[in-house]
């Protein structure tokens, strides 16, 4: 029983990362029907830029940055990576909005490679140790040790997602996003600045991914320039699981996938957990491409 609860908590923490990254996938997909393959690499960029900031703050390998310092690093990184996301959209995707899907997909792969190897050249190919060590204390719940760090991660993710939900439901920008997702042409005819809203979507998606990147750096302790590849796939799986284009679905999908994976790892061993995730992805795409919460898609002749 305890062990199951422990696995559940681990799964939720990982799932929260997946959710945050999946949100960017799903938002961009919802609005311009583009699978941003490079999205996972924005998460990686977040982890590295956060790493650099933290290293500057703490001097060499110091430990006590303080909560305020960490907060500033989070926000700074999220803004920078958000801008990076906007830049990617502006340079690579916008010129191709009308091109066939194949072209855009290939472009996205190019962007992904570019980000990965920029990072490799800038920070090196080896694993970097994150300059923050988490305290190990926590609470005993149901006989399981849950660290404050884990609770913090889950809370922070929840906060970010809640903020996003409110932003989309309550603000004029959120409304514009939903409108563009429905009918882009009509929106531009009605005077909505479509490009601006798309850019904003990329900004938000990228900064959420960046936030997840820093958190995972802190949580796992090490980062690497290829870390975005697998999580990109996982987040995509999460987005599909929840119904791609659906914000709540992405949050839910991430958590579900995180938990499934945690149990999978426990029962089958770590080397098979990716097979499990990809298996789920394939099964869903083939049998229920609209996911758990996705609306039925209608296509016309």
């Amino acid at each position, binding site marked *: 029983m305890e062990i199951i609860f422990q696995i559940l908590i681990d799964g939720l923490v990982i799932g929260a990362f997946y959710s945050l990254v999946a949100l960017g996938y799903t938002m961009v997909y919802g609005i311009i029907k583009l699978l941003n393959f490079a999205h996972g690499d924005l998460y990686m960029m977040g982890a590295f830029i956060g790493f650099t900031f933290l290293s500057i703050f703490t001097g060499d390998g110091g430990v006590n940055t303080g909560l305020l310092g960490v907060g500033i690093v989070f926000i700074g990184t999220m803004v920078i990576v958000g801008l990076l996301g906007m830049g990617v959209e502006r340079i690579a995707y916008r010129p191709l909005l009308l091109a066939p899907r*194949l072209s855009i997909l290939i472009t996205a792969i190019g962007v*992904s490679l570019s980000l990965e190897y920029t990072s490799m050249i800038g920070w090196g190919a080896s694993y970097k140790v994150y300059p923050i060590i988490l305290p190990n204390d926590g609470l005993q719940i149901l006989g399981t040790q849950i660290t404050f760090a884990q609770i913090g991660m889950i809370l922070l993710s929840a906060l970010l997602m809640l903020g996003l939900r409110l932003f989309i439901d309550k603000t004029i920008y959120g409304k514009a996003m939903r409108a563009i997702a429905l009918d882009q042409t009509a929106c531009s005819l009605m005077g909505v600045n479509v490009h601006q809203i798309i850019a904003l979507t990329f900004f938000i998606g990228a900064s959420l991914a960046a936030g997840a990147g820093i958190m995972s750096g802190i949580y796992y302790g090490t980062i690497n320039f290829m870390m975005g590849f697998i999580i990109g796939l996982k987040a995509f799986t999460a987005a599909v699981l929840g119904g791609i284009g659906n914000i709540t679905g992405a949050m839910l999908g991430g958590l579900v996938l995180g938990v499934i994976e945690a149990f999978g790892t426990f029962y089958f061993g770590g080397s098979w957990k990716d097979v499990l995730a*990809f298996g789920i992805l*394939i099964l869903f795409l083939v049998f229920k491409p609209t996911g758990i919460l996705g609306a039925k898609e209608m296509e016309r002749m």
Partner: protein
Amino acid sequence: MKKYKNQTLLLLIIALFILPFFLNSYWLDVLTLVLFYVVLTQGLNIVVGYTGLLDLGYAAFFAVGAYTTAILMTTFHWSFWLTLPVAFLFAVIAGVIIGTPTLRLRSDYLAIVTLGFGEIVKILATNLEITGSASGIYGIPRPAIGSYIMSTQKDFYYLILIVAILSIIAVYRLGRSRIGRAWIYIREDEDAAEAMGINRIRLKLLSYASGAVIGSIAGSIFAVKMSAIAPLSFSFLQSVMILLAVVLGGLGSIPGVVIGAVLVIVLPELLRGADDWRHLIFGVSLVAMMIFRPQGIWPSKNGTEDATDMDENGKSNDPNQSMSV
């Protein structure tokens, strides 16, 4: 015009046959690798170039060929040549396994599912005992022709050269046949193709299987040439590099794709010292290519003779193109 084209081709082939006598072993190796890429890109060209299906896990078929040959030759002591039909069969099966559930998917989903399958194949190779886990399979014997054991660099160069030429002929002929045209119709507009009586599912499967077979042949030869294989050679990056060569050269264009293969292999050799930069350069060139010249370096003309046919494949601006019912 046509006559000169044939003569140039003939000269080129003769040059390729006598080249080994003028190259040092380093460049001979590079050239051999180029030829492997020529075979692989021709295979992928069927799938992506002709049929328009983005396959991000093509290295999986390369792996199927390599591991089939390696396992049969080491564990079961088969002759190399006998492993080829088995690899062929497995490639078809792998193509169909990957294809059947996925070919109804929209193009971007298909891309990611093939990526997932590619990763699954790599994970299997890394974890299964029969594939030698992470360290792979080594001590793969040399193939023999009669009593002659192929072992020198030149032997393998000529083997892959012949296979490359054969695969180019095969892909060329397929592209100009009823089947090849059907693939291209599907790429251009799959609903319209279906309306013209083309069973898209069956033809997509055939496209997958054909691409898979060519990839697996390259894999089989790769195994005996290297005499050792490991999962690392069959990673996502490998799939991307093959794709890059196809895209750079020109989707669906046979000479283009050959040029692409040469570029992807030779360029990094010329940029020695800038090793770290090579993937970055490739990434940026993929993006730049799609934006500025989506049709590739040597685009396919699809048999058209327009006076002003500047924008090709890439930008047909037909919003219906990627739709399906």
